[in-house]
């Protein structure tokens, strides 16, 4: 069977039913999977729906049905996770949190850096909602908090594509597809299109 990704369709707007939301979440999962599988890992990416009274689910590589790290083409590992839900009366599909971890081996303790985002953190929360932790300690740093625990601000949102580009360009992770740059440009453009549209609405700017 030929499976063709319909990037242009991923601009869903208001999703009236959970079935529509589920279909759109799966398409978003396809988008993330295409980006990952063209670049740093052939491991499958899935959307798993969390059975609750409201729409909830996540996109990740899974072990069983649980988010799991995945091996990269350079022998190292990463963890990519997006949790999705519906927000606002219009029921827009929204990323509630994400995590992009780069780690030396399968053990989470081997993490090197990790990007994290939480849309609705438990209050009080005084950090940048989109931030990066770096597992390092500069000799010149004299702060009280361990450097690796600092929430270094990372802008409004870090796309999975920019994370994947970084792994290839600066960590020498061998790309899988010779067309990886074009594919990342396409999937990132699809995401930006959605993000820019929502940014025009102050009620949903994050």
């Amino acid at each position: 069977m030929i499976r063709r990704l319909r990037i242009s369709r991923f601009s869903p707007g208001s999703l009236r039913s959970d079935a529509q939301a589920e279909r759109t979440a799966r398409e978003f999962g396809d988008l993330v999977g295409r980006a990952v599988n063209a670049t740093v890992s052939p491991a499958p990416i899935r959307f798993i729906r969390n059975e609750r009274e409201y729409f909830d689910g996540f996109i990740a590589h899974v072990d069983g049905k649980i988010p799991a790290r995945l091996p990269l083409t350079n022998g190292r590992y990463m963890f990519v996770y997006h949790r999705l839900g519906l927000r606002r009366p219009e029921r827009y599909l929204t990323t509630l949190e994400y995590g992009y971890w780069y780690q030396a081996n399968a053990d989470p303790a081997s993490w090197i850096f990790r990007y994290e985002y939480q849309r609705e953190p438990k209050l009080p929360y005084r950090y940048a909602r989109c931030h990066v932790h770096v597992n390092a300690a500069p000799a010149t740093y004299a702060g009280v908090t361990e450097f690796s625990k600092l929430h270094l601000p990372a802008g409004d949102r870090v796309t999975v594509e920019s994370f994947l580009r970084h792994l290839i360009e600066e960590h020498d992770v061998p790309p899988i597809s010779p067309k990886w740059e074009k594919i990342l440009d396409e999937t990132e453009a699809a995401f930006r299109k959605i993000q820019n549209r929502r940014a025009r609405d102050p009620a949903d700017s994050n």
Partner: protein
Amino acid sequence: MAIVEDDYVPTETVTAGELRAALDSLSSERMGMTADGFIAALEEGQLDPYDPTVAHLAILARLIT
């Protein structure tokens, strides 16, 4: 050429019970505590949320709570 609209594959689902069982197994293995114990300790601020193992398990906990 195949038409994508017809290639429907049912979405996988996970239940709260399955998530709790997974958290129970992982938190027992890595932290020596049950899922409920992990969630309670996390909510009471008894765990270091920046510890990578805690941060990883906290993702599962947020899917349950």
